[in-house]
């Protein structure tokens, strides 16, 4: 794809222009943490962040979302379609790659998740390369970063002379075309710096954790129970790992009566919960916490790959840094990868 560039001072102009035409979502600091939210003032945006505390998956799969309203007296079902155009700016390549994994899972035919598809198709995803990854990051393992991911429309990389911009999809090319006066073709000097940056960051990350991801497929057979039992002793089932994860997609539904209609909402669910597989009869195929932890790790590293041809982890490091019990998916990678 063609490489463009934008001058540092023009980024704010670009963001302001974007926010006039779309709902602009970008990370900014609030209550001490960087989080994604609607960016009303482009001056709030600052490129000096590692990553947001929570993942941006909630813009595509909200924590709580209406599925339908059913009006019994009128006898019809109403579904709500959201169709405003959203630009997600400053998403890290790992989180952008998580979106392409979610595409594999949720848009896998014959049945497409219409709620997700609707939001995904109305969104333009612009990533900002990681030049200083967090200590917990391991995106090099799954090749989902740190400079380029797989689910973005545009990739911005910060260099000393401004941003190198790579258009990754037709949608991305259209955005460049729309704001043509702000972009120009990247020159050789800039590209040299860009390529040098890729090598440096990859070398640095490779020195921390080197794993052959293909060996992870089928780890449940090799891993045995001991490892998961040890971790289960520490796990307090808080489910933070699932909720912070950019691609934990499992959901639960709830139904109730509201004013004049029956409604169904869906919300995030977590396989760490003891109720996740428990049936009304009391039967539960996954009874122990160790089984559930085993499923969480194996699902991401072996079961999703076997079913959907993509890894269920992008190495964003959120579950590692947030887990109050210090459970670390990198231990699994180090042991069996």
């Amino acid at each position, binding site marked *: 794809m063609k490489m463009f560039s934008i001058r540092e001072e023009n980024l704010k102009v670009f963001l302001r222009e974007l926010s006039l035409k779309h*709902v602009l*979502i970008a990370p900014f600091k609030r209550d001490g943490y960087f989080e994604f*939210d*609607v960016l009303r003032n482009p001056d709030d945006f600052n490129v000096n962040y590692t990553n947001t505390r929570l993942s941006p998956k909630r*813009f595509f799969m909200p924590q709580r979302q209406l*599925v*339908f309203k*059913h009006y*019994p007296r009128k*006898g*019809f*079902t*109403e*579904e*709500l*379609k*959201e*169709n*405003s155009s*959203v630009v997600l700016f400053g998403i890290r390549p790992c989180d952008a790659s998580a979106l392409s994994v979610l595409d594999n*899972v*949720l848009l*896998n035919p014959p*049945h*497409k*998740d*219409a*709620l997700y598809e609707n939001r995904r198709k109305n969104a333009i995803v612009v990533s900002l390369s990681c030049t200083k990854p967090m200590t917990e990051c391991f995106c090099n393992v799954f090749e989902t970063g740190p400079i380029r991911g797989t689910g973005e429309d545009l990739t911005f990389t910060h260099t000393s002379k401004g941003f190198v911009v790579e258009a990754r999809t037709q949608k991305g090319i259209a955005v460049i075309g729309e704001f043509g006066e702000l972009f120009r073709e990247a020159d050789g000097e800039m590209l040299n710096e860009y390529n040098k940056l890729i090598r440096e960051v990859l070398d640095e990350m490779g020195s921390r954790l080197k794993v052959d991801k293909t060996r992870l497929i089928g780890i*449940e057979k090799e891993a045995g129970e001991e490892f998961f039992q040890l971790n289960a002793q520490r796990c307090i089932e808080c489910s933070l790992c699932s909720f912070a994860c950019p691609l934990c*997609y*499992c*959901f*639960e*539904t*709830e*139904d*109730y*009566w509201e004013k004049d209609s*029956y409604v*169904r909402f*869906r919300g995030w*669910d977590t*396989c760490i919960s003891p109720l*996740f*597989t*428990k*049936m*009304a*009869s009391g*039967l*539960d*195929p*996954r*009874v122990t916490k160790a*089984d559930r932890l085993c*499923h969480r790790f194996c*699902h991401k590293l072996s*079961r999703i790959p*076997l*079913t959907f041809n993509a890894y269920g982890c992008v190495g964003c490091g959120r579950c590692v840094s947030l887990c109050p019990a210090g459970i670390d998916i990198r231990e699994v990678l180090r042991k069996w990868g």
Partner: protein
Amino acid sequence: MRLTMPSRNRHKGGVEEMGLNPYIPKPVKIIRVKDETPDTKTITIGPKPFDEFTPGQFAMVTVYGVGEAPFSICSPPSDNNLQFSIRKMGSVTTAIHEASPGDEIGVRGPYGRGWPLGEMRNRDILLVGGGIGFAPLRPLLLHLLENRNKYGRIAVCYGARSPSLLMYRDEFEEWMKQGVDLYLTVDVGEGDWKGNVGVVTTILDKPSLNKAETIVCTCGPPVMIKFVLKKLVELEYSKENIYASLESKMRCGVGKCGHCHFGSKHVCIDGPVFKYDEMATLPKGMSPF
């Protein structure tokens, strides 16, 4: 905070529109409610919200305002209506037990992989059921009887905890009249029960079939499936021809919600009917071995 303004998209659940969003159930009326056993009712709903299905497939049934759960379709595909046999267990099933004819429920489906009808042509067929596990076998049996000349001998081994928990009792005579070898057993006899007493594996040796070529379909509680599979292999039925219908918690029925993802299989897409060797690949807890 609301990020986007919703636009209103109203529809009455037409087939074409339903295809767009798999999560919208189609409202259907309950026509009949029949007491099957002390804890199970068979509801008939209609008209059928979808045209074709394979025996063994399931549908997601919504009680509006209460919740949604997966149920095996227990009426044959030729029927104009749809039937589900439902045991009172949790909130959704309790609400269905309290429903009466004329009430509206939501249905979406059919989902999953049904029994392997193509494999059964001109072969002997053995159905092994336990308790409410006969529900997914009934549409198969009725379908086989409707097309009797296309299949070989048909034998049924059916067990329940007690005689009153045997489902579809009023149909047994009709099945036998149409040439089904029916073997019944109960764990505990009661009243005037004169038949076999013992678990279903004790009657598996009774049907005389061409074992190497017989297709076996089984459904029941996990522990029953475990011992039935063991016994079938002992009796020299071919592993190649053994199928079982497994159950799991489900929320979406279309492989998205993650609840029934075990090993590399989704029960809702790859099952609920699994072949013997596929079941061996499922992780412990889900695998009947």
